[in-house]
């Protein structure tokens, strides 16, 4: 085989590999992205109905309730303007606490309760997830503009 042919084959094989990889990647990215929404955005109906997304805020003090005999917990998160009730079945992370920042991933139910399959609290008492910090900032602005 001539050098030129060989190079051509390599280039073609490389391009084919790239095409397969690109298809895989975009398919995978498309179905596995989850966007972040603040409680206010969820209340205003900006969050998708049938797609997984993330919500974050402060766990409202006094809102954590065990329900029944199982491991299902209800609590609400707030950005100080609005709040959303979250339902989660399982064991909450160590640093989950009332008054602390939290992020939950899951879907919004028809009853406007957010059904989480994952709850994340950060492994540092002073740390606030940047998304939550931003959401709180927005919530604060909202309250101030409503008050004036």
């Amino acid at each position: 085989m001539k050098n030129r042919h060989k190079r051509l084959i390599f280039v073609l094989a490389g391009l084919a590999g790239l095409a397969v990889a690109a298809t895989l990647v975009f398919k995978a990215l498309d179905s596995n992205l989850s966007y972040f929404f603040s409680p206010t955005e969820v209340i205003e109906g900006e969050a998708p109905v049938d797609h997984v997304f993330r919500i974050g805020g402060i766990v409202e003090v006094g809102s954590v309730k065990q329900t029944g005999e199982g491991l299902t917990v209800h609590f609400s998160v707030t950005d100080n303007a609005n709040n959303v009730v979250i339902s989660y079945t399982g064991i909450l992370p160590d640093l989950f606490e009332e008054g602390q920042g939290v992020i939950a991933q899951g879907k919004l139910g028809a009853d406007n309760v957010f059904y989480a399959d994952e709850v994340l609290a950060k492994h540092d008492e002073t740390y606030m997830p940047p998304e939550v910090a931003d959401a709180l900032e927005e919530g604060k602005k909202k309250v101030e503009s409503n008050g004036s």
Partner: protein
Amino acid sequence: MIPEIGHFALILALCIALIQGTLPLVGAATGRRVWMNLARPAVLGQFLMVAVAFVCLTYAFVVNDFSVLYTAMHSNSQLPLLYRVSAVWGGHEGSLLLWAFMLAGWALAVNLFSRSLPEEMVARVLGVMGLLSVGFLLFILLTSNPFERLLPAALDGRDLNPLLQDPGLVFHPPMLYMGYVGFSVAFSFAIASLLGGKLDAAWARWSRPWTTIAWVFLTFGIALGSWWAYYELGWGGWWFWDPVENSSFMPWLVGTALIHSLAVTEKRGCFRNWTVLLAILAFSLSLLGAFLVRSGVLTSVHAFATDPERGIFILGFLVTVIGASLALYAWRAPKVGLGGAFHWSSRETMLLVNNVLLVVVAGMVLLGTLYPLLLDALNLGKISVGPPYFDAVFVPLMLPLIFLCGLGALVRWKQDDLVALMNRLRWVFILSLLLSIVIPFMMGRFSIMVTLGLLSAIWVISVTLYGMWKRIIGISGNRSFSDGLRSLTSSYIGMVIAHIGVAVVVIGITLVSGYEIEKDVRMDLEDTLTMAGYEFKFKGIETIEGPNYSASRGLIEVRENGQLLTVLHPEKRIYNVQTMPMTEAAIDSGVFRDLYVSLGDSLGGTAWAVRVYYKPFIGWLWMGSFLMGVGGFLAVSDRRYRLVKRRNKKKVVAPKVDMVEGVKS
């Protein structure tokens, strides 16, 4: 006083690094021997100074000197001595000092083991490493000085993050950093060859052992981190596709590609350009990892401290290093040349495919890691990319790679008859296929993914052993076994062990993903749960006191066929200083399965939420990683690297004389 000595030593180290990073490089370019000869003493001096600084900081931790801000932030008088020492690298400033210390250490090692290299090469390699040191030392001194004083001194420290108070975390960061920083040697060799415009098989032979050792450290570091996450984070996962894990995994993938392409460059002189590019990429990705972790742009369990000023400095350093080296590459690479030609059915092709797949996988991981940052920066929304993305792109690309990992080592260099080879291997393949169909049924449930995973792994093991057998009995097939065994080089045995290690990891991943059982349950006194033939009985909670924490300790009896197997003691600890709750899982480890129990919250009365997991074959993950590392060490210990040095010594003397005369004339 001691902290000031440390600070002063760091400043001196920077000054020496400046000399090391400039004069020898200029000397090599202009042919000034005296300037080139400055490299070796400068390396020694820099190493001593950084070592003094490191010892001073460690001393501050050991004697609980809380007038040092960094010590006050990361230690406490109650902390056991072992953790006071490991707390030195428990925070940002100390980890950077450890980086700098290791960089100086690697340079010292290059200095010691490069007696046979041409002087110009040594000057260039050490010079480039000096420039890297300048970057790191400047970063430490300008933005993250670990010796900063706290006045008035704190009465006691804020304690080390309880997550880091664990034997696994004593060794995980140093191992990982040794790997990251170790790639700087391969990088410096690559840059030196671009500067010198000479890149041949001898060059590949020099940089190969360095690259392999760095890769071994990185492999151990990643495996230790994964093991730590498994038993310490308390939810039984071993890999989360967390951005910080990804940033250690990307250099590993590219580093793996690099050690394979170096093999081609050494044996056949091909892939030269490509090898140089990989060496640049591997170290650039290590730096990118440092940027991602240290700048705080990521939301991650690892992102402890955030400071925009530091982020900007590292970003600047990153852009300079990557930009300059790629520019140099674009300018000089054509001089280096591509190397010899080869047939499509040859080991070169196999290794080329290996390289392409590994680099593509690294690219996919990079995309998934950086995509959220990109969208956020463009104000297109805050997203996160979940593990399903990584699984979806990783598995289909890795499977063919693993199939080839068995085959590639059997294909001859330059040209081989692939069809005949396949023909010889068909029984091996059929046997592997049968086993990988039967095993899932023995595990209780058939699944096509499990079969594919097992097939690739068993294929690798059997083909690798087949190849070794053929080598032992020789081409004619009548050599005695012991003679044949003695004829195997240690680099060949190393490769065999490392490839079997890959297969063992794959078996572990496949079976644990396919057959693990995870249950979160509510357990009251005397409640039992049966899982995978084991019976777990909750016997209640007792309170215990540790050296710097108090804990609720659960008692869970495990029975198999009615016989008491073991009693597990999962703990829920509250550390005294940071009052942070911590879950300590209790694990009964075995060769074929782990039983994993951890405590959730008290549910009132005597009931607790409990995690009970059955993890088949999970230990194989770490066993396999260990084999890969051991294989790497064996490969480096090959006699060939030492023999070559001796031979080189004779060769090198003559051109040296030429060069000196050349300067005179």
